[in-house]
């Protein structure tokens, strides 16, 4: 349950028995494929989720950067992002464990919609906690969750965003721990979540590694993935970690600046790997955006899905070990990359994903001959934000926003 000094199980005692039960289930079902759990998981990922997703050669980006750029297309997974890999795995595991109810938190709504889909598919009652402010920012996702039969519970504490929703879900779990499983949405939280979510997401790099070898006969020189909590990141890296020749780049949200306003408790970025300090949050020791007292900062990013003050403990360890490069791209760079990918490749990426392409634009010369970028999700959910944020800037590649000023 530890990644060097990171990880662990910093949770209320009431949850510890559930965590132990989950650890046991993880070891038996996930690691040892007991009762054919992993076979069923892979089969459902294929038929319900649409795996394998392709690894696509990006012709126009390759031309632009003078190297071979490949895209791992997680945007094509059911629900529109890599999130289903994990949600489906955990809901299925909950079924194997005999749980009767699922809770989950969601920020941008992507994990919530994936969990709601998985819960409907597996006939599992599901409640999703979401900050009230996020609910107002992400109404289509709220509606989708409800269409799938999940209850969406507004969280009114604090600023009403992801951080508060996680805390609130932990409270629900602590109350209903005996029949309930908490589907954590990223490689965060207490052990076994960081390892388990990584294992569910590792299918990304398992496929990509094989697909790329088929296409190129070799390995990529570098792999780029955006990093918020880090589930698509660890998924994209997992099967390359042992390939020492492959550079791994976790691209965090640089927000408006890496400077923090300690007085206000605000970090106008979500770059926990790049700028955070070790600490304990939401069940694990990891790198955090915190003030010198240890109070957690409000993080900020144009991309709601990266907007989290923590990061997966395994990533923190891999960065400390210099195996993963913690880099970041600011809001401007991400927005430009969003428009660039949309226009050049006919793929509208999630704003999260756009950060990885922003890094490609800025540093392609350092990334070797073959670059694999994880397209963690599609951008349909971000259209309103893109309009607002594009209007504030002068972005060459962007179409005129004039007709959409009032929203869409």
């Amino acid at each position, binding site marked *: 349950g530890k990644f060097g000094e990171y990880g662990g199980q910093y949770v209320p005692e009431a949850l*510890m028995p559930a965590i132990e039960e989950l650890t046991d289930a993880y070891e038996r079902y996930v690691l040892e494929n007991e009762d054919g759990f992993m076979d069923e998981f892979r089969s459902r990922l294929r038929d319900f989720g649409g795996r394998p997703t392709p690894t696509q050669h990006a012709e126009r980006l390759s031309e632009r950067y003078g190297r071979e750029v490949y895209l791992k297309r997680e945007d094509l997974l059911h629900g529109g992002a890599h999130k289903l890999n994990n949600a489906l795995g955990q809901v299925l595991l909950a079924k194997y464990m005999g749980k009767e109810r699922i809770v989950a938190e969601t920020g941008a709504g992507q994990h919530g919609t994936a969990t709601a889909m998985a819960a409907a598919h597996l006939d599992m009652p599901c409640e999703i906690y979401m900050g009230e402010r996020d609910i107002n920012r992400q109404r289509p996702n709220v509606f989708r969750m409800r269409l799938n039969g999940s209850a969406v519970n507004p969280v009114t504490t604090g600023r009403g965003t992801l951080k508060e929703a996680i805390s609130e879900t932990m409270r629900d779990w602590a109350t209903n721990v005996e029949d309930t499983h908490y589907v954590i949405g990223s490689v965060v939280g207490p052990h076994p979540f960081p390892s388990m979510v990584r294992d569910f997401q590792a299918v990304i790099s398992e496929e990509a590694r094989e697909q790329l070898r088929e296409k190129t006969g070799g390995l990529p020189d570098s792999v780029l993935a955006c990093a918020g909590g880090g589930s698509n990141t660890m998924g994209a890296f997992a099967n390359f970690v042992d390939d020492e020749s492959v550079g791994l780049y976790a691209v965090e949200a640089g927000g408006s600046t890496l400077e923090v306003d300690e007085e206000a408790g605000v970090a106008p970025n979500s770059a926990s790997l790049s700028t955070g300090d070790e600490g304990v949050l939401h069940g694990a020791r990891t790198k955090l955006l915190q003030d010198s007292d*240890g109070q*957690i900062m409000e993080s900020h990013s144009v991309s709601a899905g990266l907007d989290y003050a923590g990061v997966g403990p395994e990533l923190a360890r891999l960065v400390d070990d210099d195996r993963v490069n913690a880099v970041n791209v600011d809001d401007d760079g991400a927005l430009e990359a969003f428009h660039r990918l949309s226009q050049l490749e006919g793929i509208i990426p999630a704003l999260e994903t756009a950060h990885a392409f922003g890094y490609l634009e800025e540093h392609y010369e350092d990334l070797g001959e073959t670059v694999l970028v994880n397209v963690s999700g599609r951008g349909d959910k971000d259209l309103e934000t893109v309009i607002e944020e594009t209007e504030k800037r002068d972005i060459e590649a962007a179409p005129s926003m004039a007709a959409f000023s009032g929203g869409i």
Partner: protein
Amino acid sequence: MSGESGSDPVRNPDLEAAFADGPAFVPYLAAGDPDYESSLEYVEALERGGADVIELGLPFSEPIAEGPTIQSAVVRSLEGGMTPERFFEFVEDLDVDVPLVCMTYYNLIYQYGSEQGPRPFVERAAEVGLSGFVVPDLPAEEADPLREACDEFGLDLVFIVAPTTRGDRLERIMSQVSGYVYVQARLGVTGAQEDVSGQTEESLDRLADYDVPKAVGFGIKTGEHAERIVAGGADGIIVGSALVDIVAEGAKAGEPAETVAGRLEEKARELKQGALRGYEQRVPQAERT
């Protein structure tokens, strides 16, 4: 205490003493809620009302184990400027004679001071006269560094035992606990939501073989609750939300601190008296040693 593994933790005499003589009333307030000066008065009122030990909350921005009542207290206190350093000053400024236990989350303990790890925090806590800690997000498995620091400076480390805590886990916790064990009467988070006296007996049964004092918390809001809990075997009662509610109402109504303090004292007295009645039922005067 019948811990089965490891060396026995050092025990702080203050907490032991507080439970030695009849049922202990252990109220909780968030330090600095809603402001520094009022909060000092409120804590002192608790002592006047009969507190035997006081749990003082050092607010953390992500209080995952708390219900809405205490979350709101945390927000008020943080907005009032509470920090770990101010918290220690607060403890120094308090004029009370009962032992004080610091209730906070591990990250604040971990970050304090110039080196990482819990030692600087514990050292400073000892300096200002705190008697121990309750850390809701620190299970026994992760507690060694804090336990060691507590032993070094002679402070108690209180652990929570939940309704789900059984078997090996219970052993592990009971081997590390000192001061008292915080018996969580029901699943969930803090909050004065329901009468839990009925659920207490089973919890206390599981702990019968351990001789550390058992203080029951979560959901106690009236003297009657306190009475039933103590009658059911508890060595003490921990009450937080019912008291924080009084602070919250006062803050909302903009009442003078002394009015609110009076109300707190009164509520404390009700709870303490209830505990004493329960104790009388369980251990009639005649039978006491």
